[in-house]
Each structure stands twice: as structure tokens, then as C-alpha cells.
């Protein structure tokens, strides 16, 4: 399905990305080109093939034991926040 400006707007909204109206046309063109290129995968028969979502060889590591290890990053983290309200991170109202 060809990518047009309306699709760009839809996915930009999903991704919380502001795209300037002047740019929408160009993104649509570029995405359409790339998706056109990846169409070649449709030619391949992948029936019965397991998907690979990660490549992990070798022995499996153990899971983490349930033991508390306190971190000392809190103050640095809060100090680096764009906006804070006491010990909270502060953001505009969710409406």
C-alpha cells in the first residue's frame, strides 16, 4: 500500500513525532521508496520458517536471584530531569 501524507500523519501521531507540514510530502516519498524496496521480501517463500527475533548462541545464563541491591543514582537522576517537583518528575497535565 503506497505511503501518502495521511499515512505519515497517522504513524507520526502513533510515534508522538511532530512532523512539519512542509516535510510530510518528503517523508511520504522516502518511506514509499524504502517500502517499495523491501517489497522484494514478498517474493521469498518463508512458509515453515521460524522467525529469528534474536541471535543467541552458547550456554544460557541463569536468571537473577531475588536479592535487593540499592542504587545510588536517584539524586543524579532527579537533578538531570527537565522539570521536577520536589522528589517527583514533573510533566504537563495529561488531558
Amino acid at each position: 500500500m503506497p505511503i501518502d501524507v495521511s499515512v505519515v500523519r497517522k504513524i507520526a501521531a502513533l510515534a508522538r513525532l511532530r512532523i512539519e507540514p512542509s516535510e510530510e510530502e518528503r517523508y511520504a516519498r522516502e518511506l514509499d521508496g524504502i517500502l517499495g524496496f523491501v517489497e522484494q521480501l514478498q517474493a521469498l517463500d518463508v512458509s515453515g520458517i521460524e522467525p529469528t527475533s534474536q541471535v543467541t548462541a552458547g550456554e544460557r545464563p541463569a536468571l537473577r536471584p531475588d536479592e535487593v541491591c540499592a542504587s545510588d543514582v536517584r539524586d543524579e537522576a532527579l537533578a538531570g530531569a527537565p522539570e521536577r517537583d520536589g522528589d517527583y518528575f514533573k510533566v504537563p497535565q495529561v488531558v
Partner: protein
Amino acid sequence: MSAPLVLESAEALAAAVAKGERSAADVTRAFLAQADRTAPILGTYLHRLAESALRDAEAIDRRRAKGETLGALAGVPVALKDNICVRGVPTTCGSKILEGYRPPYDAHVVERLRAADAVIVGKTNCDEFAMGSSTENSAYQVTKNPWNLECVPGGSSGGSAATVAACEVPLSLGSDTGGSVRQPAAFCGVYGLKPTYGAVSRYGLVAFASSLDQIGPFARSARDTALIHSALCGRDARDMTSRADARPIALDGLEKDLTGFRLGVPRAILDEAGAGLAPSIRAAFEAAISAFERAGATIVDVALPHARYAIATYYLVAPAEASSNLARYDGVRYGARRSEGDLRGMYEATRGAGFGREVKRRILLGTYALSAGYYDAYYLRAQKVRTLIRKDFLDALEVSDTLLLPITPTPAFKIAEKTDDPLAMYLSDIFSIPASLAGVPALSFPASFDASGLPIGLQLVGRPFDEATMLRVARAYEREHDAASRAPAIATAGGGGAR
């Protein structure tokens, strides 16, 4: 005459510092001075750490004076790509959205480097969030190729490749997702290793595409590459995908010759690049094959039938993972916030202003590929093709010990030459991406130079966790050729000179 210090190998420098023949402080000063001279011209660094580097070096010297035995990288200056976290040091990933961000923790590789007594001298320039092949996508500056200031150093780890090529450091770290270590290494005439997926912990590496990202070193010799890889590899409890199977490499093993060694050559893949493949690259490739034959290797023809689908697969898988990995840059907890009305306005303004074009393009692409109704046709199908591509490599590495491939279709291209055509830029990853998708180790080594004096690199691909064999093959080539030992004029203009 004895070569200037900055041209020496990390191995030699570390040995000298460990023996006390040289002080870590002197070594660090020499490299800092080199960088003072060349870094402003090349634009290699986003953030330099001269003061702390000297302090660390002096601390190392004091520990030696106390009789402590020093680590394998004693006093060796190392530069880090700006997507590797160092506590309290700016880490921007070349993006505006992380302007002013200072991580409150160290990456695993940073802990390992310190444990080996290396000295961290700065954060290098890169494409924004490691997305690019020229380092032109950095929100901050352009980095130049030390061999020709009009050319790109490659990317996305262009700063880390250039700083090693210019002898500003003997060693540096980059990250390789689809070729971001190997391709700039080739453009800059140095070694670049993408370890087996899982060989080096990703803890503290800012994620681009989690199932592909690996931290990899740049160096100016096969032995130095092995030296730093050995210091970094192995299991880390903070990365479930890291593996204990990754073992340090014995340097002596690299000196074994190639008798009885089987070099796999997937010639057909060269045609994939078609007209895009520079004659100089093809020539270097063929020359290398005969060189390895002379060195005693048996040449085995192998096929990677699905490698042709690698780019299409990669540009679905990587953006999909990236669209999710980059969701955390929302202006809530760190980075640069742009406020506009309500929460949603803040999100969109912050991300709209904070990300560059390439990053936005990939977020959109990945969001689309994962969105309802397209997942099966795009992301899931790509993952199945990925299975076929990995199998190709494992099969080829059954009948051979290591594969030889080109790494780039051309030598370094001119700055601004490709910025307008994303797809063309993507297509130049044809030789690097397959090994990334397969998760196997790959090494870019300096092979020769083209007529214009630009470096040409070639690529070796090995079995999972068998970085040692690739480095042994590269070392055999290094013994017979001088491509690796040449330094660009800018590196020696300070009074150096070819070794």
C-alpha cells in the same frame, strides 16, 4: 630513528607502562597533544576528557609505584563513541534530544577498560543514535577522513575510526549494528571488529537495534584488536544476551601460519553490488584471495544465497526495534524538553525538535512496520528471512573456517555526496549487513589503498565466538602487507613519519 610514541602499538605502550619504562602520564600527554593538534581539524570528538585522563594516568602510575601489577591496557588512552555511557560525562549519541545528558552510571565496557588500567580520553562523534554511514547525521558536527579531509570517515562510528587513524589514540570503541564499526574502519584504514552478538555486554550502550547492536573496537593492528577485545568480552549479569562463551584471545595464537586453513569466498555476493562496486575494491579483493593462497590457505567457494535480501530485512528489523528503543526520549526524565500545552504537545514538540531527519525517518518506518495490519507482512516476514540468512553463514562456515568479503562497495565518498538519497546510502551497506543479521563475528582489516590514496578495507567473517581465527588470518595478511602500518599525513605532520 625511533618512531614517535603516538605511532606505537597499544601492546607495546601497555608493556612499557607496566614495566615502568614509561609513565602512563607521559603516554597520555603525548596522545592528548596529538589530539590537541588534529582533533579540531578532523572533528573527531564531541567531548574530550583531558583533565580526568591525566588524573587517571597519574593514579595508574602511583599504583605501579606501590608495586601493583597493572592491567593489559596499562596507561593506554582509549576513546569511546558517544553512545557509550560514562558516569557524569555528557553522552549525547550525536543527538540534540540528549543535549546536556550525563548518565549516572558506567557502561560495562567502561568498567572493563578501567579494570585493565586503560585511560578514557573522550567521547567521539557519530551519526545520531548510530543511524548512518558517514557521521554526517550527527546533530553537532561533521567528522573528516584523516586520509582526505574532503571525504567522510564513514559511520556511524566515524569519530572513533578517525581518531585511531589519526593516532589521537591507539584504541577506541564504536558500536556496530549494520556495519557501523567495520565500514568506517575500512574508510579510515584501520581494524574494526564487530564481535559475535553476545560476546560483549551491551549494558551502557545506548540502544539502536537491540538484536543487532554490538560494541566493537578500532585498532591499528590485529594484535591490538585482539588485546582490547580480550579485555572486553565475556559474560555480564546485567545483559541477558551476553555470553560466557566469549573467551580472551591468546596473542601468540595469532602468529600461526595458514597452512591447512580454509578460506570461504562467496564470490556471487560481489555481483549484488553490481555497477556500484568500485574496480579498486574488486581488485583488492582478488589480490587478497591470492595472497591468502600464497600464505597456505585453501580457497573454498561458498554461497550466501539469501544475502541479497539482507538490506531489505535489515531496514525492517532495525527501524522496528529502534522505534521502540527511542520511545524513552519523551522529555520526562532526562534530555532536552520542549513544552507545548498539554502532555501530548510536550511529547510531540520534544521529539519533533530533538530528533534529526534520519532518526525520524527510521522511527516512522519502524512504527509502520510494527503497526496493526502490517506486522506479519513486514516485521515477521523479515525475521523469517533473517533465519535463512543466518543459516547461509553457518552452512558456509561448516565447509570453511572464515569467509572473505568486501566490506564497502567503494572507498570513502565525499562529504555531502549522498546525504540526499537515503536509499542509496542504505544500499552501500550490502556487504556489512548480512553478518550483522546472522549475529556472527566480522572483522574489517586494512588491505590496500586506491590510486587516490584512500584506504581499502576487506572483511573477514567467522564462526560464533571465534574472533581469534579471523584475527589470525588478518595478522597473516598484515605480516606481508603494509596497509595497516601506514599513517595518514595529518597524523605524522606533527613530526612523526611512516614507520
